[in-house]
């Protein structure tokens, strides 16, 4: 207790300036919190309670929801296991994660799904504990390899789960699910493409350099909304009518545009990393007899990517939030749902603040988890 008091005195009441700052800060926090709490208590949340399914999975029919649940449980278990195996997060930050993720779980768990959620949570905790406690290093190597492979095949598996046994049409995918899927696709496809573009722009072959530069500048030069609209109305006219290319599904078109858009931004971030590697390293690797390809793969790229991890993650977060722009393509993503449910019936009129607050909360939680993971990686890599 005495230590606590002295800490408070040290940190908050050290000097006159500290006292003033602390009091202003405390008043500010009190004001924000009291407004927030009175908003939460005084609002009618039926709008959200009724539309939980809509917010998470959009127009997907009720009987297909198990697909979303399967994907959710697979991802959760894989995530907890890999966090435990790779990062050894301490109990304190694990509790923080759990509390953070509990917010959406509390909002979106219904009576029907309670058992399911509990089951997933118990499984995740078991896997987390197993990973946390495992000492056998040979077993650990095998498991961590399995995890690595699982991450790589996770996305194809998700698509398989969404499509097997006569799955719903892609245009019916929606809600928060479509935001997460689009962001995952854009990141997984955009990252390798971005690396190639960055290397291309730094290349000494003039034509490759020109094409990469042109691509990056053209894609970055127009807003994402413009590209999405082009993909919707103009792309079908450009594409040859082979393999059904000209009537590509609207969701696939959104995925392509988002990936291309993401790659241009990621390329510029990685180029920054490439330029920060001193020339001497390249010379040294040549002196060791490496050719330029192995120099790039083993010397330059690993260092460059390590340096730009914080910027890359903030690009990822930006891409994740950009996925909410797909509503103009008639894809009912989370933000679109948030804006249309107040119009559902007269009782909900004028409640867009409530629905948008929940939308913001969901985006915030995922972004926060992403940035926490990046911080953990940074710590692990000693950046």
């Amino acid at each position: 207790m005495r230590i606590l008091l002295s800490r408070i005195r040290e940190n908050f009441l050290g000097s006159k300036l500290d006292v003033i700052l602390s009091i202003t800060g405390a008043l500010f926090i009190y004001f924000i919190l009291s407004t927030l709490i009175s908003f939460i208590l005084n609002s009618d949340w039926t709008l959200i309670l009724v539309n939980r399914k809509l917010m998470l999975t959009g127009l997907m029919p009720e009987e297909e929801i198990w697909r979303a649940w399967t994907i959710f449980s697979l991802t959760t278990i894989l995530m907890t296991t890999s966090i435990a195996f790779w990062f050894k997060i301490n109990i304190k930050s694990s509790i923080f994660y759990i509390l953070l993720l509990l917010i959406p779980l509390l909002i979106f768990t219904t009576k029907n799904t309670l058992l399911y959620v509990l089951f997933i949570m118990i499984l995740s905790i078991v896997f987390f504990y197993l990973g946390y406690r495992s000492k056998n290093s040979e077993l650990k190597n095998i498991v961590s390899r399995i995890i690595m492979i699982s991450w790589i095949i996770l996305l194809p598996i998700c698509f398989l789960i969404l499509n097997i046994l006569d799955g719903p049409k892609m245009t019916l995918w929606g809600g928060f699910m479509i935001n997460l899927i689009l962001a995952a696709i854009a990141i997984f496809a955009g990252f390798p493409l971005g690396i190639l573009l960055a290397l291309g722009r730094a290349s000494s072959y003039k034509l490759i350099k020109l094409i990469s530069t042109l691509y990056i500048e053209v894609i970055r030069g127009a807003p994402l909304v413009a590209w999405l609209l082009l993909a919707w109305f103009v792309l079908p006219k450009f594409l040859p009518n082979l393999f059904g290319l000209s009537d590509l599904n609207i969701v696939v078109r959104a995925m392509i545009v988002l990936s291309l858009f993401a790659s241009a931004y990621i390329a510029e971030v990685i180029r920054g990393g490439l330029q920060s590697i001193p020339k001497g390293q390249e010379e040294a690797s040549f002196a060791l007899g490496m050719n330029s390809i192995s120099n790039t793969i083993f010397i330059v790229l690993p260092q460059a990517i390590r340096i730009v991890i914080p910027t890359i993650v903030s690009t990822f977060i930006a891409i994740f939030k950009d996925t909410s722009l797909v509503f103009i393509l008639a894809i009912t993503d989370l933000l679109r749902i948030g804006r249309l449910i107040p119009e559902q019936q007269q009782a909900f009129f004028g409640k867009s603040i409530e629905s948008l607050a929940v939308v913001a909360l969901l985006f915030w939680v995922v972004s926060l988890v992403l940035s926490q993971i990046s911080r953990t990686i940074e710590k692990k890599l000693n950046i």
Partner: protein
Amino acid sequence: MFKFRLIGIISLFSVLFVLAACSEESTSSGSSDASSNTLEVIKDRGTLNCGVNDNLTGFGVVAPDGSFEGFDIDFCKAIAAAILGDSSKVEYTPLTASARFEALGSGEVDVLIRNTTWTASRDRDLGNDFTAPTFYDGQGMMVYADSGYDSIESMSGATVCVLQGTTTELNLDDRFTGSGIPYTPLTFETNDPLQAAFEAKQCEGWTTDKSGLASKRAGFPAASGGPEALVVLAETLSKEPLGPLTRDNDSELYDVVQWVVFGMMQAEESGITSSNVSSMAANPADPGMARLLGVGFEGGEVQDFGFGISPDFMQNVLYQVGNYGEVYDRHLVPLGLTREGSLNAQWTDGGLIYAPPFR
């Protein structure tokens, strides 16, 4: 370096030329695709692509289970029932007000039923064909009852909340500036923030279609005074006939859409509902009813109007969706939009709902 730039510019232009050539080629093929018989395309595909609204109460909203429902949605269902025999075979594309005509023109949707006002420029310049209106609306003005405004003329200097990019905004300007009444428009992209602003009394007037005003008024929260706190002024600022539209030169589908709408109106006039359509079809009361339902009268021949769909299409429509009055009662009456005395009453009751004869 300079030489290199030149090569870059030349190659860029050549790429653009190739793309332009390609686009020209495929536009022509694309438009021939679009102008080809959409009705046959729908039959081959087995689903109807319907462009709709997803956030207009009563006309088109997304229900909590993810299905679409509303007045406009029921006409999509009716067209699917007529062409494919199953009202559930519709794929809905929710469209924003600004993207709707491009979506129809580019072939993303077959038919657009999204509370779209029939105007000359939309009919001609944008390459659309409007069928008979399904709902006659008009722009109105809603004010607080205690504000003292009783007409547009009295609203000098008022701030008016309006949705941007709609005909509503233009009509508002026509009415006020045209009569030399000073006013300040306050524009919003969607209805809900507009309502928040109105509740916060950032604007004195709220203008949109009268149907929208009536439903917004009926649902006005009690905390802000409830429906009694608001008055919709008697004046109608504009005519807003809302109805389905198809692409120009797409007569086969256009005719089907047109006559499904007329059929639903005629069925109401003849007293055929979803509950009695089966018995009426088995035993039609008069030759006109028999022609509407596509059955022979007293053992006579079935008259096929040659729409390219089953002659008894109206039976499917009425059985699965209902007649015009049923659709109206299902979606718009709960919002407080009564039909009596309005333009949307049957012509026999003094309204504009009038179907040409099925003959």
